[in-house]
């Protein structure tokens, strides 16, 4: 079995993300703690060194995750989630855990609100264009923009 399926699990500070819910399913919070990992054939995610895919039999591995989109197939459907910064851990037993600060399912992205915030963050960043790269304000804005970008891509892609 270990050769065919991966155990996928996404943990956030909000709890474990319920990966079983399909589009139009329960509108409850994205996090729930009773549910365990799901079985998937593979998963694609945004790692710090570039987009990567994990298939069964992957070596034990650990890598940073940057804000972006996680893709996998479950229940015959393609699923996408926007995730924030975090870590990916592939264990020897073939379980994949994504530890991320936040996760939103593609269909839960509030497109209008995100677009609006995105525009205002970009504008504010433009005002700080001359500031040093280490400036706390710029770093804050860049982090926000990355997260908003991730949500937009999850929605569109």
């Amino acid at each position, binding site marked *: 079995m270990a050769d065919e399926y991966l155990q996928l699990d996404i*943990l*956030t*500070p*909000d*709890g*474990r993300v319920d990966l079983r819910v399909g589009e139009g399913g329960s509108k409850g919070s994205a*996090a729930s*703690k009773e549910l365990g990992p799901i079985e998937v054939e593979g998963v694609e995610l945004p790692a*710090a*060194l570039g987009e990567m895919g994990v298939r069964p039999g992957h*070596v*034990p*591995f*650990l*890598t*940073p995750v*940057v804000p972006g989109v996680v893709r996998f197939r479950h229940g015959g459907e393609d699923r996408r989630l926007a995730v*924030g*910064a*975090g*870590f990916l*851990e*592939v*264990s*020897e*037993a073939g379980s994949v*855990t994504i*530890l991320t*600060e*936040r996760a939103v399912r593609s269909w839960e992205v509030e497109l209008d609100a995100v677009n609006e915030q995105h525009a205002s963050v970009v504008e504010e960043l433009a005002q700080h264009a001359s500031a*040093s790269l*280490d*400036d*706390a304000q710029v*770093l*804050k804005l860049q*982090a926000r923009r990355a997260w908003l970008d991730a949500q937009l891509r999850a929605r569109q892609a």
Partner: protein
Amino acid sequence: MANLKEIRNRIGSVKSTRKITSAMSRIAAARLRRAQTAMENAREYGTRMAGIVGEILRELEDPGALHPLLRPSDDPDNTAVGFIVVTADRGLCGGFNSAVNRQVEREIKALREEGREAHVVTVGRKGRGYLKTYKQAALSHHHAPTKSDEVIDVAKQVAVEAISLFSGTWKAEGEGQGAEGEGGEDEAPKLRVAEVRLVFNYFKNVITQEVHSDKLLPVPVPEPVDLDGDGVPDPARAAVVHAIRAFEPDSKQLLDHLLPVALETAIQQALYNSSAAEVAARRTAMDSATDNATELIGELTLQYNRERQAAITSELMEIIGGAEALKG
């Protein structure tokens, strides 16, 4: 007679106080469950993350040389210490806020005696107010978050501030803005600290909160211990070795990502703990306030009845006395 009325008024006001405290206690009890669940959910994430960070730092050879956030400051003039003080926005929760404030005050006092400076970032109004009376203005202030989204945002902002304070890129905002407006001069002195500490209430259980004062920066490298305590190396080990190899020769890149996340997670955990602890502390405090009020009402009622009986008795005595006098 005046005394009777006074007691009656007193009973009335204690009763309405009891109504308020018992309502607050009930609200806190309802919120407690939610706050506790949020904290427990976060704890799983936090311990996994701390485990990963600890393992990577342990595995690296000489981590201090690899990243500035791991290195104690090499500037002998830089002796200041930054504090991140996590309290609540509201009071009426027993010793919750004052415990943190006293701890911070003690630490700042010790530093001042050594001639070292302290800089403070506050989360929660109560900490800022207290420190102001102690002549320690906060560099930056955040509201105490209650919802999960807010916790993540605030943790992120505080982490960025902690890093910029530690790496010496902090610009004094409040006073700096005035100066910029007048002469356009960017003369605000850049602040720098040699160490950042995080002071918060740790939620031990529903009735006990502990004040923790943890060193955040430079990021402490944990001792090589077995986290499970079962003598078997932790399962992440192989993954960690692969991770470090994958980032060879540039472990700095790995740390660049790892350390801010580690910092944020530590702050997030503190915020979750603090908000659960706040609710728990308020519930306990309001519970005992309600009990006290009930007790006080009992005492006052007894006193009231006694006084009333005394008044009646003395009136009777007067009437009987009058009747006796007429008879005679």
